[in-house]
Each structure stands twice: as structure tokens, then as C-alpha cells.
């Protein structure tokens, strides 16, 4: 019955690109207030930690003052790398810096340090519009691969990301209002986790929610999907660290 309903939903028409709306607009006023409070926003704990890592891990030795050198950088990530032939996300770039320039061991994706530094760098772009470049052929191809992944049903519930976040945006799923699934606030402090999480963690959580297996670690589709998710929110304001339910 559910499958049939979704099938009919799909027949209703192709997925159309709508005006992007930040997840912030779907929150309760109390949660919005927590995000807006620069002190009480719990995500700022990780931004602080990221700032300490920026100094202690040697980022500052090349990049200097992050508030100058990293202003606007996060808003442009992820980027297509011709050299590597794949999309490079901000997390991956941090690890590339660590292994190739600083001669240190890369951090595990989703580790506390990685998320903290990611949050710190993204935070430097707070208030700037997301501006992922889509002008080249490779960029458009990556966007398209990400879009296909986003719109492909998967898992035991046979749901695609778009089934909820595009076709049913603004409607309720149990007690929750479905957002557009925009990525402009990541890494986010998620109240459900009582912890910060990068986009990776959220994507894994969404897979689990539709009882699907996420792609294997290191699969380039991770980059493509993140590229699509960020690029579809081009023009939204970077909110890192955002507070979400």
C-alpha cells in the first residue's frame, strides 16, 4: 500500500527544483533562539575546540589567522579536483593537508577532532551565501551523480531522499516537520544526538532511518552526494554551527 502510494506520488510529476529554504525555518522558535544565541549554542563548544586545534595542529603555520584566510572558504566546498579526479569535501581537504603538508596521520572521518576543525572552518563563513561552483562539465557531472543518488529509492522502506525532502517538504512525518534537507548549517548540533555531527553522520543516520546501507567508506559517491546537497542550497546563508532537532 505504501509502495503504491509512493509510486503514485512519483507519477505526480518530475522532481522540480524549488527555492531553497534553510532547515532553520522548520524549527520551533525555542530551537531557533538556541542557534541564534552565540554563547549558548552548544555547537560553539566544538568551534572553540576547532580553534585550539587550528593552532596546535599547525594549520595556522600556513593559513595564519583563520578569520581572514578561511573567510568564505567553507561556503565554496566541496570542490571538484581535476588532479584527483573526484570531489574533495572540506573534511577530506583537512586530511589531505594533514597527510601531505603536515606529515601527520589523517583523522578518522567523523572523529571529534575532524568535526571540530570542520565546524571551526565552516564557522568562518557564517553569514555568507553557500556558493558551490557548478560551472564546469565535471562539476555538473558530479552534481548529476549526486542528484541521481538522492532520487533513487533504497533500503527496506524503498524511500529516496527526495521522497521526503522534496516531495513532502513542509508536511509532517510523525511529530516532525520535514525540511528540505539543506546542508547549509553543517556540522550541526543535533538535539537528538546531544552531540555535533558532520554531513557524513547525518547521511548515515538518514540511511539507517530508511533501513538502507550507506555507501562503503571511501566510495566517491560520498563526495558526489555532499556536492549535490551543498550545491542545491546555493544562495542559502552558512549557519554553522546550526542547531537542529
Amino acid at each position: 500500500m505504501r509502495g503504491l502510494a509512493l509510486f503514485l506520488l512519483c507519477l505526480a510529476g518530475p522532481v522540480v527544483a524549488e527555492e531553497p529554504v534553510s532547515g532553520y525555518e522548520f524549527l520551533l522558535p525555542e530551537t531557533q533562539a538556541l542557534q541564534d544565541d552565540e554563547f549558548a549554542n552548544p555547537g560553539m563548544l566544538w568551534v572553540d575546540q576547532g580553534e585550539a586545534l587550528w593552532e596546535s595542529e599547525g594549520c595556522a603555520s600556513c593559513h595564519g589567522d583563520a578569520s581572514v584566510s578561511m573567510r568564505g572558504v567553507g561556503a565554496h566546498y566541496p570542490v571538484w579536483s581535476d588532479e584527483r579526479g573526484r570531489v574533495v569535501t572540506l573534511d577530506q581537504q583537512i586530511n589531505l593537508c594533514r597527510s601531505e603538508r603536515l606529515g601527520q596521520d589523517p583523522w578518522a572521518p567523523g572523529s571529534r577532532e575532524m568535526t571540530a576543525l570542520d565546524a571551526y572552518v565552516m564557522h568562518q563563513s557564517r553569514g555568507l551565501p553557500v556558493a558551490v561552483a557548478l560551472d564546469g562539465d565535471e562539476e555538473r557531472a558530479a552534481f548529476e551523480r549526486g542528484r541521481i543518488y538522492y532520487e533513487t529509492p533504497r533500503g527496506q522502506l524503498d524511500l529516496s531522499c527526495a521522497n521526503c525532502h522534496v516531495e513532502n517538504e513542509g508536511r509532517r512525518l510523525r511529530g516532525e516537520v520535514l525540511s528540505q534537507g539543506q546542508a547549509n548549517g553543517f556540522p550541526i548540533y543535533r538535539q537528538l544526538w546531544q552531540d555535533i555531527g558532520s554531513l557524513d553522520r547525518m547521511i548515515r543516520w538518514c540511511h539507517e532511518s530508511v533501513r538502507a546501507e550507506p555507501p562503503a567508506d571511501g566510495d566517491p559517491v560520498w563526495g558526489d552526494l555532499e556536492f549535490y546537497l551543498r550545491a542545491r542550497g546555493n544562495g542559502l546563508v552558512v549557519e554553522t554551527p546550526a542547531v537542529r532537532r
Partner: protein
Amino acid sequence: MFNTRIRVPETAVAGEAVQIRAMIMHPMDNGFTYTTQGTIIPVDIITDFTCRYLGDEVIHVRLEPGVSANPIFTFSLRATETGPVDFEWIDQHGDVTTASATLTVT
């Protein structure tokens, strides 16, 4: 030591009640949750929070497992003279985390 964020106004007028805020990064595991592998996560909490101004205790809070992660406290103290505002968190293992700021009274 855990990451903390504290906010103490830099200056205050003598007799003024100033707002103090203090937050600590801590999971506050309540002992009722499980890992994805199904093993229980044992209780791991901050048990005591204390703030002292000029060496005198302003507030002392005893925390229980029902408190959510990254606890934040907001309270007032009456400024009398220039001096340190010290914060101290103690977790259940006895580890102490401290932070301090100076309140200048004019």
C-alpha cells in the same frame, strides 16, 4: 579537563547584579542508552558545579543523570570588588575542570 565556555562581563558597577554563564562539553551519559552494537553505555556524568567569586561560593549545583549533555548554567552575582570568578566542574571519577575570569568593578 573538558572544553568549557564561560561568560563574565569585563566590568561592572559596584552593587550591580551581573549575569554569569558557564557551559561544559560533556556527554552526560545517563546509563539508559545503548551503543549501535547493543551494549549499554554506563553512567558518566558531571556531579558537581561550583562558582566562587572572591573565594566565596556563589552557587553550587549537584547534577544527576537526568541532566542533558553539555550542561549550561546561567545565574547572577552581585559585584562588590575587582577579583576572580572561578568555575569548577567535578565529574564522577573525581576529575576536576576549572575556568576563571576576572571581574573588574568600577
